[in-house]
Structures are given as structure tokens and as C-alpha cells.
């Protein structure tokens, strides 16, 4: 009995708890025979145990919400979930996001570029200095040629590597990038169509795939002409990808699973993964995901079914969540005749909603009340004077000033969908707003349409017949990038069909601020200009700001050291898995 007890303690520390405890116990019991033979056996057995400990792989299996594995060839589809799982894992971009803190805002940091600056004489030319000594997973070096090649894969139509299927998701996120030119091996010049200080932020979306790997695949690819060969090469590249990221592709079963292993040679030693292998499985259905976690098939799921959260907690799973750069708004129509043209009405709506009540009563705590597109602490927040909070009396007063009251209700119509990416729980949330706004003399009518239609109508604008006379639309948006968070909604030239200024906001003040921000190239001053724009939009009550999503995920308690930043992304390198 005594030997067993001591045995369980000693080898356990020796193998750092990675091997199972059972085999060392047997080893020591044999050793207690104290014969030379037994000692020899022990030595053999012990080395075996240690060897086993060394090879015992730590694996984390993740259930994603995507219906299919996001594309693995460098430019993922499936929105930011795609970037999270198949972009930032296997690839790096010139610039990246700081994902190291759960309290501070996630800001742009150097990635494969160490520094960058705009040409003071020609504000459409930027010089990027590249990180030396970085290698792709296939061993080829990362250099200026690789950057030019990757820019041209989506922008230069006659380049052999040009791939139409990657253009849509990439070009729309870098609307002004025009071309790239090599200066020397570690210096590149990027040109934009017009001066645009947002370029470094946009570039987080252009991932660097290995040109030499692709070239090899291209040469052996089947196909009648260059175009067919190029397509086949990209298909082959997707199945055997090579980037510079902290994870390397290991195994890929289309539509079922993607396995990546850690890249011990990753250039940022602080971000070499602690887990050996990560498996990603597409599980679009919340219930199936939750069942997979509860039955031990996966270790981590994205977006558990909210109703399952209590049971998950009770079974010892950990729920992570944090404010995300995401806004759940009503975007107002500002065309002639829209009741939202009166700023008192816009402010009243913003003051009439008890967002805390929505958070706890409706969403099991899984939202952050919105007081603007960015919350305090964010560099682009600024200092709005209009404070968005729940103040029913003030809201009623504003409505009465605007000429409405209990006997004269204001009818407003909002288009929304019953489901959709990022829409959270659109129907219950809108019904909640309907009830809340009724207290402030609003008569809210909901026009529920299909998610894809809603999304398409977003681009057609409030004047289009497809808007069906709605005074507001309820499409949620990501707020990672100043263009997507503000410019496309507030600038008058972004009105349909150009972009998503759905309500035709036309305010010279916003236009001037957008121009100022775009043409301010010092990062600090640019952030200050963006903050000014944001403060102005809040003061104007440009939206009905309701909620930010919190990106809930549930995982086994064995996963430690994970940081969930205020971002759509997460750094998988920091987590460890205890057996």
C-alpha cells in the first residue's frame, strides 16, 4: 500500500501529468521486488512511459457555426468566423489584431510588416517594411515578391494566380487598394486609388499564401489552358495549404473537418501554440453543436444554444463571452417623409429602450447594451454629449415636443429577418423593442422577411420598392474597420447603390469628418478624427443603437489560458489543454 501511494506521487511529477497515472503505479510495484531484473524492467518501462508522454498529443476539437469549413486557401469565406478559423490560424497578414487582452480594445498591430508609412508627397503610396526571417510552412521565404504576388491574386486580372473566387471577399474589404510594387526584398510599396488612411486596417484581411508552393502545384496541375490550371492549382492549394501562421494544415476532409498542428518555427515565439493539434468541425445547427459538446465529441463550441447554457454550466463547462465589435441597430430611413428625420424622435427612441432588461430578460446575459457603435475605452469612441441610456420620462418629453402623445401615436415600420448571421435573436429582440417603444407613443410595425432578402435590400436602400415602405432596417454589422463601422453608413456618397447608406443620410458634417479621417495619416490623429466622427454620429442619434453581440462559446474546463478579447477573433496559441 505504501509503495503504491508514493509511486503515484513521484512519476506524476516526473511526467508532468501528461501520461496517465496508471502505468507508473505498476512500474513502482514491480520495482518494490528489489531485484536487478525488476529494476531493469522498471527502467525500460519508465522510459517507455516518458516516451509516451512526449508523444501524447494534446488535441482541441472545436465545433464551428459555419455550415462548411471556411475556405483554406488564404482568403476564407463565411465572414469573420472564416478569418478566425482558417485565416488567422494558418496565415498572417501584413497587419494584425492585438488579441492579448480581454479588457482593452483590440487594435491593429504589426504582423508580417514591422512598420509602414505613407509617402508624404503622394498620399496614395505607402511603404511597408517586411519582417525578416519569416518562412512559409513549405520552407520558402516570405518577402516582397510574396506580398506583390498575394496582392495580385485578387487585383491583377491577367496574373496567373488571379482567382475570381477570392476577389469578392477580399476586394470589398480593401476598397481602395490598387497595386503593389517591390522596392527591395523586404520593402514593398502599396498604392491606393485615393488617399486612404484606413489601408493598414484593411490589410488585416489580406492573408499571405505561399507563392512557391502554389507555383509547384500550378506546374503539375491538370487543365487545358492557364485559367483551368490556375483553378486546379488553387483547389490543390486549399487541400494542402501553406502560409506563415502559427498553425500548419495537417489534414483536410472537405465539408467535415480540418486539422491543423502547431508550427514550432512560428516567427512570434510568444505565439507558438501550446496545444499540438486543433480540429475544426462545421456544425451549423446550434442543437447539434450543443449535443456534440455534451456527449464529449468536441471540446469547444461556438455559440451554444442559449437555452442550453444553464445545463452546460451545471455539467461543468465554461462559458466565455466578451463584447464584440458588432452592432445590433435600427438603421433609420432619412428620405423625405420619414418620421426619423426629426432628431427628437431619434433621440426619444434611443432613450426609451431598457437595454439591461433586454439583456437579462431575453438573452440570458449574452449581450452588451449599446451606447453607440463603439463603447467607452475604444480609441474611436470619442466624447459624445448625447448619453444613450434608459430614461423613459425624457423620451416621452421629446416625443411630446415632436407632437406625439398617448392619443397621437407615431407609426414606424421596421424591416427585419427571423434569423441570420449576427442577427442574434431578431424576432424576440424586435418584439421587445416594439413593446418598449410603445411606452413612448411609437406604434412599431415589423416587416419580417427572409435574411438574404433583407441583406440584399440593405444595398438597395430605403427608396427602393423592396424596402416596402419601411422607416428602418435591422441589419447588424461588424465594426472592426472604420469603413464598415461608420463611413459606409454616414457618408452621403455611400448611398445606394454604391454602399450601405440605406437611409440616405446626407449630412455635410459627416462628409467632412469622413474626409478628414481618411486623409489624416498619423495613426493617433486618425483615431482622434474617427472618434470625432463617432461622437458626431451618436450626438445625431444616427441609429437606434441596441446591442453588441458577445460571441459566446462554451468549452470544457480542461482548456486553460484562453483569452477572449473584444474582437471577432481569438488567439488559439495561448490555450493549453490539461488531460
Amino acid at each position, binding site marked *: 500500500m505504501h509503495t503504491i501511494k508514493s509511486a503515484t506521487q513521484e512519476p506524476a511529477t516526473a511526467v508532468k501529468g501528461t501520461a496517465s497515472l496508471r502505468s507508473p503505479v505498476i512500474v513502482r510495484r514491480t520495482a518494490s521486488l528489489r531485484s536487478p531484473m525488476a529494476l531493469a524492467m522498471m527502467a525500460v518501462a519508465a522510459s517507455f512511459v516518458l516516451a509516451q508522454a512526449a508523444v501524447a498529443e494534446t488535441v482541441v476539437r472545436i465545433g464551428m457555426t459555419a*455550415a*462548411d469549413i471556411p*475556405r483554406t*486557401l488564404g482568403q476564407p*469565406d463565411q465572414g469573420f468566423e472564416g478569418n478566425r478559423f482558417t485565416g488567422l490560424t494558418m496565415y498572417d497578414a501584413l497587419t494584425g489584431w492585438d488579441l492579448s487582452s480581454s479588457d482593452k480594445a483590440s487594435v491593429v498591430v504589426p504582423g508580417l510588416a514591422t512598420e509602414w508609412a505613407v509617402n508624404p508627397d503622394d498620399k496614395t503610396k505607402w511603404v511597408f517594411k517586411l519582417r525578416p526571417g519569416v518562412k512559409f510552412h513549405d520552407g520558402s521565404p516570405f518577402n516582397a515578391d510574396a506580398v506583390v504576388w498575394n496582392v495580385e491574386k485578387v487585383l491583377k486580372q491577367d496574373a496567373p494566380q488571379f*482567382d*475570381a*473566387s477570392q*476577389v*469578392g*471577399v477580399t*476586394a*470589398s474589404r480593401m*476598397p481602395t487598394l490598387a497595386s503593389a510594387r517591390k522596392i527591395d526584398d523586404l520593402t514593398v510599396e502599396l498604392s491606393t486609388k485615393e488617399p486612404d488612411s484606413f489601408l493598414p486596417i484593411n490589410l488585416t484581411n489580406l492573408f499571405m499564401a505561399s507563392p512557391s508552393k502554389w507555383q509547384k502545384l500550378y506546374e503539375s496541375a491538370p487543365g487545358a489552358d492557364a485559367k483551368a490550371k490556375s*483553378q486546379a492549382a*488553387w*483547389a490543390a492549394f*486549399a487541400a494542402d495549404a501553406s502560409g506563415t501562421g502559427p498553425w500548419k494544415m495537417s489534414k483536410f*476532409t*472537405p*465539408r*467535415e*473537418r480540418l486539422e491543423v498542428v502547431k508550427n514550432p518555427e512560428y516567427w512570434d515565439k510568444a505565439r507558438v501554440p501550446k496545444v499540438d493539434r486543433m480540429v475544426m*468541425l*462545421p*456544425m451549423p*445547427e446550434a*442543437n*447539434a453543436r450543443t*449535443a*456534440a459538446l*455534451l*456527449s*464529449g*465529441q468536441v471540446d469547444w463550441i461556438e455559440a451554444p444554444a442559449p437555452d442550453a447554457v444553464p445545463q452546460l454550466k451545471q455539467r461543468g463547462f465554461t462559458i466565455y463571452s466578451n463584447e464584440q465589435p458588432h452592432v445590433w441597430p435600427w438603421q433609420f430611413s432619412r428620405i423625405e417623409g420619414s418620421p426619423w428625420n426629426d432628431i427628437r424622435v431619434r433621440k426619444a427612441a434611443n432613450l426609451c429602450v431598457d437595454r439591461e432588461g433586454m439583456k437579462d430578460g431575453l438573452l440570458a446575459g449574452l449581450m452588451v447594451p449599446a451606447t453607440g457603435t463603439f463603447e467607452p475605452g475604444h480609441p474611436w469612441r470619442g466624447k459624445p454629449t448625447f448619453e444613450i441610456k434608459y430614461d423613459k420620462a425624457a423620451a416621452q418629453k421629446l416625443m411630446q415636443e415632436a407632437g406625439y402623445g398617448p392619443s397621437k401615436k407615431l407609426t414606424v415600420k421596421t424591416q427585419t429577418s427571423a434569423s441570420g448571421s449576427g442577427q442574434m435573436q431578431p424576432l424576440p429582440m424586435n418584439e421587445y423593442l416594439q413593446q418598449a417603444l410603445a411606452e413612448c407613443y411609437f406604434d412599431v410595425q415589423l416587416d419580417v422577411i427572409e435574411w*438574404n432578402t433583407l*441583406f*440584399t435590400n*440593405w*444595398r438597395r436602400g430605403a427608396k427602393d420598392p423592396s424596402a416596402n415602405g419601411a422607416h428602418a432596417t435591422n441589419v447588424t454589422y461588424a465594426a472592426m474597420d472604420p469603413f*464598415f463601422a461608420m463611413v*459606409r453608413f454616414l457618408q452621403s456618397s455611400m448611398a445606394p*447603390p*454604391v*454602399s*450601405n447608406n440605406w437611409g440616405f443620410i446626407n449630412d455635410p458634417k459627416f462628409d467632412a469628418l469622413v474626409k478628414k479621417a481618411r486623409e489624416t495619416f498619423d495613426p493617433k490623429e486618425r483615431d482622434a478624427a474617427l472618434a470625432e466622427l463617432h461622437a458626431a454620429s451618436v450626438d445625431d442619434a444616427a441609429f437606434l443603437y441596441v446591442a453588441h453581440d458577445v460571441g459566446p462559446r462554451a468549452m470544457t474546463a480542461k482548456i486553460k489560458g484562453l483569452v477572449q478579447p473584444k474582437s471577432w477573433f481569438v488567439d488559439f496559441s495561448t490555450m493549453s489543454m490539461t488531460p
Partner: protein
Amino acid sequence: MLAYVARRFVYAVPIVLSVALVCFLLVHITPGDPLVAVLPADASQELAAQLRTAYGFDRPLPVQFGLWLWKAVHGDLGNSIATGRPVLSEVIRAVANTVTLAVVAAVIGFTLGLFFGIVAGYFRNTWIDKVATSVAIAGVSLPHYWLGMVLVIIFSVQLNWLPAVGAGPGGSGEWKWDWAHLSYLVLPAITTSVIPMGIVTRTVRALTGDILSQDFVEALRAKGLSETHVFRHVIKNAAPTALAVMGLQLGYMLGGSILIETVFSWPGSGLLLNSAIFQRDLPLLQGTILVLALFFVFLNLMVDIAQASIDPRIKRG
């Protein structure tokens, strides 16, 4: 017999062509942008036009159909828009997984169905018959996707006995016929087998009952033939119809497991079809439907030929 087989094959050609046309039309009458999978809604109009040309969606429909058919005849169903992978390889992989599921489900469903059916037919209007027919009718009346969800909750979530979703610990690419993999198949196969079980039971019960009540069976029994011989007669007479029904059911399982595959995330043709529909991936959608329909036509052909070889009277039809 050979002539009959040849005739059936020739007869299948126009059907196959029409099936291809229906597939194509079905997919192309659809309103909505075929490029939604690769084109974000906030993309500019030039970008949209540029991509439409790159994918050939700007050409007239008959031209698109002709090109597609010409390539399809040569074994090329084009590339998926969302993934860029060849449609044919995607469909073949998915169909292989569906076949795995369907075959196991067919073994379960047909065995139980034949057993219940024969027993019920032999003991018509006894309590055994009542139990068997109740099981059968419950089988055909159950919304099977619902049954699947209930089974997952019981056996995966609560009891932790069986995996809830997926096709094996390493994905379908590493499928083996051992318990570690078969455990993934248990719940979806049982769920899939419920309807064929019910239908086969009902058919076989009726057939057995009818044959047993016919005069020649009485005559055989009167002649002192053993029950084994009578049973053999029953089997022989019931086989063509039972076979036809089972063949048809197998076909339905191959094409119709979309609901079950969705519930269990089984990576088969149904799940592929589901994602093709929701991603509006036209080449994948029409390719999948075409392959499944051709499979079904082929299976029907096989059933016809098998029936004809058992029962020569059919050949004249």
C-alpha cells in the same frame, strides 16, 4: 432476356436527358444571385459584373445548359462556386457516405420488415399481427427527423452511449467497419430504417396473407406438402413485388435522407444538397440532383431487370 435488358437501357436514355434538363431548369428558374457565396452583399456593382462574366453567368441559358450538358457527358460537372472544388468529386464522396448509411439502414429496415411482415401474414388477425402492424404503421407515420432528435437527446446527451453527430472519429475519409466508427452510424441508421421497415412490413404482410388465402395453397396443403414447402411457395410468389418495393425504398433512402443527415451532420448527399441550397451554389446543386436522379434511374432499372429475371411474365410489359 438480353433483348429485354437492352430495351430497358435504350428506354432509359431519353429519361436521363430529360432528367438533366429538369435539374438544370429547376436550379436556374430560381430568383436570386448565383454568386451570393463568393460575393458579399456590400461588394460594388463593377465587382459583381466582373465576377458574373468570370463565372459565365452572363451567357444565355440555353448556351449555359449546352455547355453544362456537354461537360457532364464528359464526366465534368464543373466546380463548386463556394469551395472551388470539382462538383463530381464532392458528389461522389457524399454519395459514398449516403450509401454507407442507406445500406446499413436497409439491412436493419428490410430484415425487420420482412420478419414482421411474414409473421403478421402467417398469423393474420391474431395479437401478433396487431403488434406487427402497429409497429409498421407507427414507422410510416413518424416524422423521422423528429425521432432522430429524440434519440440524440436520450442516447448521446443524457446517457452518453453514442456519438451525436458526424461520421467517425476521424471523419468519413477514414471510415472503417469497426465499432469505433459504426457507433456513429447507429442512431442515423435506426432513424433512417424506420420508414422502410414500416413499408416492407405492410407490403409483405399483405402479400403473405393473400398468397396463403389462395386456393393453390389449400391444394398444396391438402396434398400433404410440408409447411416448409408451402413457405417456399409463399416466398417465391411474394419475391417480385417485395423486391420491387425494397428497391424503391433503397432509392428513396439514397436520395431522401436529407432531413436525417441534417439532424446528424452525416456528410452525405443530403447534407451536401442542403448546403448547396442555402449557399445558392448552382453548379453543386444541379450536379448533386443530377447524380442522385441518375442513381435512382439506374436502381429502378436494376429492380426491373431483377424482377423480370424472377418472373418472366413481366418482360412483355
